[in-house]
């Protein structure tokens, strides 16, 4: 059995772990387009800011692959797929046969059409190569324009700012972090940026990168006609599933590769996971690409298990974000951008305390929590995610959701909802650990459990049902 994994990031790593948990003998080949082991892409901004040394960048070291008997082909990417022959085409035309194939090539940064975008000084910011290129130019850059105020854009802006570069952010939409923040919270973010001394332009876009005769960047021109002088441009307007190499293979592709709940594609023995795929969105109830690290891991794990003959199912995911810049912290999940009072099908609960710097917003639809947004005080954000995962009826404690009171009711609901004996709403309970003590214990003692061991023996019986 030969497992071929195209791509070498988190989905691939999770898949390797899942395969090896079931199949010790099969051959695993990883096609790694970059000449390095798996590393954490979000960390490159931390590295640029000097917070993470380069030796911490790798997510897995060489030893991880060696211990799992994985062959890694560095520096080559998947260029084509020949499903009828059961083989893939690598860079340079080399063919590689597979019994099972996992497509985990991730996503490519999207570069919008701009004049003069080709050439030095304009970089996306998703890989170590990009980061190194920026790093190399940094001594010459005094001003940089960051195109896009998304996660990557904001983190890149923060990193560059911390390196003493004047940063201007240009965003097409009229909000900072437009996929996460709503209008009100975006104002908070703008305030933070102003305090930090970072320029931003909202509702405008770059139409041209102006270059001097030597080819170096000298500024950008916006749609509104404004010219912003700069020596470098970071393009961070998002990523697109890297489906290019799959053209002509007959695989079903929409925006991303379409997979079923086992992460299997339309082709036999070909699975896909990570930023490449269009998988089920738990909140929207439809398939769409969600490019997020935790979901990629989950999908990789499930795809890997199924590659090796398992029967794992992906129940779906939803966007979860945590981002902090200039001391401003945002935690969100699901439909966090819904504006209060705009859509009737959603009830939006907001708690705002400017003095303490607290902003909490919960979006409730159909008595289920659909999304939340927390600013600054994010320490218990996970409970909200739990409520979304569990798809629990939150109406009994809806009012308490965003107020300053304890989350006991909600938290208890989460824990209760995930107990094995009432888990209709939480099919995913088993990975959680069993929450509270078994109810059977509470049915009063006819034989008094005087020793903890007795209780525990009982507990483990319950566990294995």
């Amino acid at each position, binding site marked *: 059995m030969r497992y071929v994994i195209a791509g070498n990031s988190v989905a691939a790593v999770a898949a390797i772990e899942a395969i090896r948990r079931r199949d010790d003998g099969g051959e695993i080949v990883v096609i790694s387009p970059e000449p390095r082991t798996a590393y954490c892409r979000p960390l490159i901004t931390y590295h640029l800011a000097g917070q993470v040394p380069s030796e911490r960048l790798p997510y897995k070291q060489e030893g991880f692959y060696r211990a799992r008997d994985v062959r890694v082909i560095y520096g080559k990417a998947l260029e084509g797929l020949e499903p009828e022959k059961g083989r893939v085409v690598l860079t340079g035309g080399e063919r590689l046969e597979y019994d099972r194939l996992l497509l985990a090539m991730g996503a490519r940064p999207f570069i919008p059409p701009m004049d003069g975008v080709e050439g030095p000084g304009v970089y996306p910011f998703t890989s170590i190569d990009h980061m190194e290129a920026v790093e190399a130019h940094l001594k010459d850059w005094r001003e940089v324009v960051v195109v896009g105020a998304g996660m990557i854009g904001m983190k890149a802006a923060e990193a560059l700012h911390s390196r003493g570069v004047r940063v201007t952010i240009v965003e097409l939409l009229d909000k900072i972090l437009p996929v996460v923040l709503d209008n009100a919270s975006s104002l908070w973010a703008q305030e933070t940026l102003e305090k930090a001394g970072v320029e931003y332009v909202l509702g405008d876009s770059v139409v041209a990168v102006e270059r001097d005769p030597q080819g170096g960047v000298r500024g950008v021109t916006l749609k509104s006609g404004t010219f912003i002088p700069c020596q470098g441009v970071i393009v961070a307007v998002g990523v697109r599933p890297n489906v290019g190499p799959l053209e002509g293979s007959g695989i079903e592709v929409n925006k991303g590769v379409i997979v079923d709940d086992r992460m299997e594609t339309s082709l036999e023995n070909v699975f896909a996971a990570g930023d490449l795929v269009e998988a089920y969105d738990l909140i929207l109830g439809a398939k769409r690409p969600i490019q997020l690290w935790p979901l990629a891991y989950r999908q990789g794990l499930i795809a890997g298990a199924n590659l090796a003959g398992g029967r794992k199912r992906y129940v779906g995911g939803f966007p979860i974000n945590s981002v902090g810049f200039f001391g401003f912290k945002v935690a969100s999940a699901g439909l966090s951008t819904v504006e209060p009072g705009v859509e009737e099908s959603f009830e939006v609960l907001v708690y705002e305390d400017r003095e303490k710097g607290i902003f909490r917003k919960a979006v409730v639809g159909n008595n289920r929590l659909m999304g939340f947004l927390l600013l600054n005080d994010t320490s218990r954000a996970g409970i909200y995610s739990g409520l979304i995962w569990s798809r629990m009826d939150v109406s009994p404690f809806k009012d308490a959701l965003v107020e300053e009171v304890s989350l006991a009711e909600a938290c208890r609901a989460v824990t209760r909802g995930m107990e094995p004996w009432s888990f209709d709403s939480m099919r995913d309970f088993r990975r959680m650990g069993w929450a509270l003590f078994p109810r059977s214990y509470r049915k*009063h*003692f*006819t034989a*008094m*459990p*005087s020793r903890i061991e007795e209780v525990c023996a009982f507990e483990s019986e319950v566990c294995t049902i």
Partner: protein
Amino acid sequence: MLYDSVFVFPNFEVERNYERCIVCKACVQQCTFDATFYLPYRGRVVSKDTNCVGCRRCEAICPTGAIKIRRYQGEFKENAYWTPRDLKDLYKQAEQGGVILTGGGNDRPYPIYWDHILLDACQVTNPSIDPLREPMELRTYLGRKPDRVEIEYNDEGEPELKTRIGPNLVAEVPVIFAPMSYGALNLNMHRAEAAAAKAMGTYWNTGEGGLHRELYPYGDHTIVQVASGRFGVHAEYLQVSAAMEIKIGQGAKPGIGGHLPGGKVDEEISKTRMIPVGSDALSPAPHHDIYSIEDLRQLIYALKEATNYEKPVSVKIAAVHNVAAIASGIARAGADIIVLDGFRGGTGASPAIVRDNVGIPIEMALAAVDQRLRDEGIRNWVSIIAAGGIRNSGDVIKAVALGADAVYIGTAALLAVGCTLCHKCYTGKCAWGITTNDPYIAKRLNPEIAAERLTNLLKAWAHEMKEMLGLMGINAIESLRGNRLRLRAVGLTREEMDILGILPAGA
């Protein structure tokens, strides 16, 4: 203090060592009497002494030992006649114009006869027994015993008991948990009592508030009470029990009824007591169908009839002046067990004036009743249970020697699970979670821990009792019953010794 009446003087003061206080606010959370507060603007936990009842819950829970509860140091002018307590009670009544309520048992300095009685021991001429080497019997049968035993021989010539012996309770330890109702106590305490009684092979008593259905499996170890309010009394209640008890009186408040405030009657209590949620549970002072021994006999036999004559019936009375004559009547009315409740017995709520001034000591009542029944030749008709202020196993042994078959422990059982005798049972805010039905506070009493503690207490007492029996050269507690020769009095008058039926020390 500000906003308090000027006539309020604190009983206790909370001394907080701010060098040790880590502001974890556990004391604030645990204080149910609003005596402790957190002041955010001072960043400190502070106390209001006038609210402190001296239950010491905060002291017990404080993780750094920063709290000490002390008697309030401010003092009235010294007066041998008017005590500070008299003054404070009087001020309170002048302020509010009502009866002063209290809980627990009589705490006034009346004589404690237990402490004037000493036990005998074997020396040289009669050997003592080592309970670790030789069997020692604490098993006690409670109920009517026949006047004589007749034996017949079967076809094979072997002897068989011809006399039919009525129903008896078998207690492996002659210590039974006293009647304390569900309502006065919470269900957690009842659970603990039931589990401990079962574990130790003894009994517990429901009190007058009925038996929660959850505890029916413990019926074999449960004495169910039928009191003047008849709360929770129905056929199943009687049938599930080990014995039934008619409550005539209570040592802490002889001659008056009970009152469970409507606020304490929640869903579960309402179901168990069979009264509407939120309605006051009033126990009349007398049973309105019992005005004579003959009426009592009717109720006793009604209960026996209802349970097919399979369970003993007990009658509980407060120890009052003519207790011996009443006990004789009860024995003749058909009771199998008589419970005598002395004036030190506790209560969930009683007017303080009644608790502190009514009744007689259990030692006297017990001796008088035992003697009277012996004199009349009917002592074997009934078993006697002594109740009201049994503090330790020494009291148990002395009670048995004075004529008791077994004892009830109420206050001692509550102490075992944390009670500190602050006597605020009637408020329903017991900080130790015992006499409260507030679900928030009642959680503090973990039935599992409480049951273990009660079991431990009975185990310890049983061990001590065996030691004391051994040193008297007795190997069964039955042999000690009414054996007043093994008791001697110190510091008692001739009359007191006559009533107790014991000789002075040295005689």
